[in-house]
C-alpha cells in the first residue's frame, strides 16, 4: 500500500467524523498555541533586555568593585571601594592595557534635585565625557562637558528629557541653575529622549562630571563602576585580560578567585540574561505541555472509541487483503494527522495571540517590545503534536490491527 494511499485512507476515515475529529484536537490546539505564545513572549522579553544591554555597544567593558560571592557567608561587598583614582590612572596607561580607547569612572547615586520651587528625586550619573559616546547621549540642545571641565571639577550638568519635563515644564532649561543636594549646577545640555540604555534610564538621569560628583555629591573616594571602551569589538577579550592583570598587579592579587573586582563584557551580560530568560521560558512551556498530555489522552480515548466502532470496517479490510501493518498504519496515521492538524491550528492561533500580546505589551511595557516568533518554536509545535499523535495513537492502532478478520466481521 503506497504512502499516498495510506494518507488518503486515513483522511477519508477522519472526514466521516468531522465534528468529533475537530473536538478531539481542541486539547492539542490549546496546548500548542500556549507553547507558541509563551515562547514568543519569552523571546520578546529576552530581545528587549538584550537590546537594552547591547545599548552600551559591544566594545564596552564594565568593571565593578567587589567579587562574586562564593557562598552565603562570603561578603563580596566588602571590597566595594576597590576602584579609585589609582586604578583609573593605571588603566589609562596604554602600556598596561593597549586595547583601551578610553574610560569613564562612574558615580551613581539618587538624590533630590531642585529648581526654584520644584523638587524631585533623580538618578545622578557622575561620568567622563566618554559616556556621551558609549550611551549615545549627545545633547539635543546645548553641549556635553569636556575633559577640561571634568578636570576642573566644573559644576555643570546634562539633564535627561524627563528631568527637563518634570522640573521646567515647557520653559527654557538651558543655562539655568539647579541644585543637586546643596551644590548649584549649571545646565549646559539636554539629552534627547532615549529610553532605557543598558540598564540606565537616561531620560530620568542627570549626568555630571565624575570628579564633581565624587567630591560634592557622593562624598566618597571610590567609583561605583568604570566603563571602558575598547578600540574595537575584536580585541575585547585581550583587553579584559589586560585589565584584570593590571588590577591584580595593583592590588597584589595572585589568585584570581580572590579578585576584588569584576570585569564583564556586553557578551557576558547578554549571555547571563539569555540564560535566565530561556530557563523561564522552558519552565513555562513545560507547564503548557501538560495540556498536551491531556489532549493526547483525549486523542487516545477517541481513537479507541473509533476502533471499536469501526470493528466491522477493520474486519472487512482484513478480509479484502489488508495486513496487520496496513491497519496499524491507517489508524496511526489518522491520529498523527489529527494531532498535526491540531498543531497547525494551534500554531496559527499561537502566532495570532502572540502578535496581539506584543501589541499590548509594546504599549504598556516598552515601545521596544518586538513581536518575535522563532522558527524553532513552530518546528517544536509541529514536532510535539506529531509526537503526541504517534504516542497516543499507538495503543488504539495496535488494538485495531490485532483484531482477527472474522471476529471483526461478526461484530454487531
Amino acid at each position, binding site marked *: 500500500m503506497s504512502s499516498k494511499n495510506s494518507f488518503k485512507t486515513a483522511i477519508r476515515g477522519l472526514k466521516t467524523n468531522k465534528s468529533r475529529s475537530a473536538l478531539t484536537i481542541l486539547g492539542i490546539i490549546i496546548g500548542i498555541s500556549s507553547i507558541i505564545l509563551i515562547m514568543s513572549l519569552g523571546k520578546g522579553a529576552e530581545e528587549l533586555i538584550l537590546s537594552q544591554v547591547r545599548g552600551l555597544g559591544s566594545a564596552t567593558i564594565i568593571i565593578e568593585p567587589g567579587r562574586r560571592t562564593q557562598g552565603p557567608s562570603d561578603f563580596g561587598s566588602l571590597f566595594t571601594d576597590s576602584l579609585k583614582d589609582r586604578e583609573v590612572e593605571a588603566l589609562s596607561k596604554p602600556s598596561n592595557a593597549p586595547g583601551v580607547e578610553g574610560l569613564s569612572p562612574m558615580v551613581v547615586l539618587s538624590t533630590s534635585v531642585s529648581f526654584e520651587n520644584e523638587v524631585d528625586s533623580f538618578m545622578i550619573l557622575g561620568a567622563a565625557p566618554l559616556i556621551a559616546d558609549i550611551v549615545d547621549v549627545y545633547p539635543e540642545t546645548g553641549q556635553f562637558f569636556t575633559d577640561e571641565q571634568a578636570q576642573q571639577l566644573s559644576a555643570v550638568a546634562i539633564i535627561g528629557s524627563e528631568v527637563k519635563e518634570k522640573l521646567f515644564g515647557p520653559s527654557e532649561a538651558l543655562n539655568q541653575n539647579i541644585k543637586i543636594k546643596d551644590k548649584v549646577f549649571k545646565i549646559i545640555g539636554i539629552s534627547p529622549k532615549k529610553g532605557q540604555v543598558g540598564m540606565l534610564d537616561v531620560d530620568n538621569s542627570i549626568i555630571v562630571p565624575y570628579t564633581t560628583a565624587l567630591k560634592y555629591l557622593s562624598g566618597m573616594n571610590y567609583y561605583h563602576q568604570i566603563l571602558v571602551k575598547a578600540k574595537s569589538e575584536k580585541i575585547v577579550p585581550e583587553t579584559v585580560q589586560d585589565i584584570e592583570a593590571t588590577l591584580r598587579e595593583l592590588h597584589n592579587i595572585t589568585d584570581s578567585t580572590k579578585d576584588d573586582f569584576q570585569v564583564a563584557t556586553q557578551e557576558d551580560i547578554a549571555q547571563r540574561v539569555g540564560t535566565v530568560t530561556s530557563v523561564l521560558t522552558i519552565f513555562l512551556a513545560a507547564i503548557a505541555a501538560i495540556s498536551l498530555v491531556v489532549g493526547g489522552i483525549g486523542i487516545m480515548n477517541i481513537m479507541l472509541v473509533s476502533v471499536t466502532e469501526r470493528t466491522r470496517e477493520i*474486519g*472487512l*479490510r482484513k478480509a479484502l487483503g489488508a495486513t496487520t501493518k496496513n491497519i496499524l498504519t491507517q489508524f496511526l496515521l489518522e491520529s498523527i494527522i489529527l494531532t498535526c492538524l491540531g498543531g497547525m491550528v494551534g500554531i496559527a492561533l499561537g502566532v495570532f495571540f502572540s502578535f496581539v500580546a506584543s501589541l499590548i505589551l509594546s504599549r504598556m511595557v516598552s515601545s521596544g517590545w518586538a513581536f518575535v516568533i522563532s522558527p524553532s518554536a513552530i518546528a517544536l509545535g509541529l514536532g510535539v503534536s506529531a509526537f503526541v499523535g504517534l504516542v497516543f495513537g499507538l495503543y488504539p492502532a495496535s488494538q485495531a490491527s490485532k483484531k482477527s478478520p472474522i471476529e471483526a*466481521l461478526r461484530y454487531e
Partner: protein
Amino acid sequence: MPLIEIHNLEKTYIDGETETHALSGVSFNIKEGEFVAIMGPSGSGKSTLLHILGFLDKQSGGNYFFDGQSIDDYGEEKLANVRNKKMGFIFQSFNLLPRTTVLNNVKLPLLYSGIKENLWQAMAEKAIEQVGLTHRLNYETSQLSGGERQRVAIARALINNPQVIFADEPTGNLDSKSGGAVMEIIEALNDNGHTIILITHETYTAEYAERIITLKDGLLESDKKVEQRRKGAALSFAK
C-alpha cells in the same frame, strides 16, 4: 490437483470452560472452476467452514491445502495476500463502507494489492460493468437498494480476478427478485471460470450450484451432484 483440499478439519471454540465443536472432522476436495453450495441448518458449522476456507480463520485440527499448499505454511502477511489476490468475498450483510461511493468501495481491495494506481479506475469500471451498475458509479452506497448493494459487493469481490469467490448467504437479505439477479451474476462468474463456494440454507438457491455439500452438527452429512441445475436465464425469462 484440487484447488481446495481438506482432511478431517476440526474447529473448536473455547469460551471459558465450555468447548463448542463447530467442526468435528470434515473432509472434501473442490476442483478449480467448480460451483459448490454448502448447506446445513444454523449451527451446523457451515459459516465456520467458509471462514476457514477463506483464510479468515484457522482450523484447530486437520489439514487444509489451498492450491496444493498447506495453510499452516502461510504467515499473516501471506494469508492477507492470498485473500487479496486469489479470493473474493460476498457477505450476507454486504459489508460496504458507509458514506463512500460505489467506485471507491469497489476499489478497496486494490488498495492492498500493489497494483499501480493508474490502472484502478479502469479495473473498477470494468468490474462494475460486469454487475450492471455503471449508471451508479458515483452513488454513495446508502443511496442504493439492497440488490444493488450486493452487486457492488460482487464487483468488489471480482476486481482482482480471484480464483475462488466465497459467498456467505448472498441472497439472505434480499427479496427473491434481486436475490435472483445476484445469483445470475454469480452463475455468470462461474461460467467465466471462477470457482464459487456458496453458503446458503435455501435449497432453491443451492440448486444454482453443480454440487451440494450438506453439514450437520459439524460433520459432513452428504455430498451430492445436482441433477438438475437451476439456470438463472430460465428464471429471469420465467418471471
